[in-house]
């Protein structure tokens, strides 16, 4: 499946991502500045915070309790479409997914 990030400088980056990969791993593999993934996807750090583009919000689902709590105090402002990338896993239903990296 394909995924597109809007980067911190406003440009976009599109990459092919294998099903089963989470969006933090995909971002790190593609060297997306601003998505760090310090804890390796163990839901401990919130350094992979992204915004889900409006037309994809319904498809990526709602954050679970622990993720919701982590999002409550992220460095960049929390919005209704805030998610931790590591909790969104690629599958066919997300082909074309568009994520926005929070600006500094």
């Amino acid at each position: 499946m394909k995924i597109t990030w809007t980067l911190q400088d406003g440009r976009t980056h599109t990459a092919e991502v294998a099903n089963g990969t989470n969006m933090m791993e995909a971002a790190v593999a593609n060297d997306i500045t601003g998505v760090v993934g310090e804890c390796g996807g163990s839901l401990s750090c919130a350094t992979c915070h992204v915004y889900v583009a409006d037309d994809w919000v319904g498809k990526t689902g709602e954050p679970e309790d622990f993720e919701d709590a982590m999002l409550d105090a992220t460095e960049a402002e929390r919005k209704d479409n805030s998610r931790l990338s590591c909790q969104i896993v690629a599958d066919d239903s997300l082909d074309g997914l568009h994520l926005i990296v929070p600006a500094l």
Partner: protein
Amino acid sequence: MQRVVIIGAGQAGCSAAFALRKRGFDGEIILLGEETDPPYQRPPLSKAYLLGDMERARLYLKPPGAYTDAGIDLRTGCDAIAIDAQQMRVDTAQGPLTADAIILATGSKPIRLPEAVTGGLAGIHYVRDLADIDAIRTAIPDCKNAVIIGGGYIGLEAAAVTTKIGLNATVVEMAPRILQRVASRETSDAMRALHAHHGVTILENVGLALFLGDGSVKSAVLADGTELPCDLAIVGVGIRPDIALAQAAGLRIENGIWTDARGQTSAPGIWAVGDCASFPHTGAPLRLESVPHAIDHAETVAANVLGARTDYTARPWFWSDQFDVKLQIAGLNTGYDQVVTRPGGKPWSRSHWYFAAGRLVAVDALNAPRDYMSGKRWIEAGQTPDRKRLADPAADLKTLV
């Protein structure tokens, strides 16, 4: 600058390589790793990977093609043997390399038990490299009784995983309490209760005398004479920075490879990042053993290698997963004189807040992500919450500073 040689292909070395490229360096980057795997994440080794919940390829920090794509010459299975600081030369198993800058990212090595204690027996394992964990995973199906030497985070994670797999696990801690070196009595008590609940035996205030066996380990004899059946021994008694190359090259050593605030060692042109580096932090030298530090430090030092003049500011945080508890730690509790407990509403949920002379310095949050996130921000901003209200779980965290 035409060539940077990075010694050590762990988290810090790998991050430094990509950071150099990202900052526009267009010369040669050679990344030397002594292991045969490409750079990988270590934290899952004692958690999901040991448990068998995570595939090997998923540990890798970058997909296979990423190094070539970024023009990073990754040389795995290639040891650096010596550094000549005057000539700016690195001798490797495959020949010498000259460099315009050398970045030491040699990491750390586990403290090993002396042969008098291990008897040279098979079945005694350490937790550091992928190969260590592969050896434990291979051994586990034939084992019943795990004895874990050391009640620090590595030992407790190993106890949690071996218990989950179905072994009887016993943790042996020489100090009066588990986690004594790194956490408060309150955190030790909570983690002890968690492990007891899941059937781990925790023995404190007693050291290991020696292992007995016949080719492979059969029992562990403790200092008080107790003999524990043991067919799997896991030793987690701490790590030491790998300073051998730096020391041999005549670099200044001070609880690690000494660096200035920008990451430069005592030899111009030679830098150190991650676990192995001892850097100034609020006036005293500090060494940090963590992934977040390895990443942040590598980013700052890479910029300095390319001519920036940025002092590194550490923002320490750590985490551990044990059974159904996620422990998140922000700050450094060095010198604390008071601990405030904030109870939580969920199983095992609570947080312990460390104060030094009235100032918040660290927090241990158990299944309490809001407490962790708030605490981390306060500590980094130098803010201190009201202690009395902090202890009241009904008080909204957002109103405490």
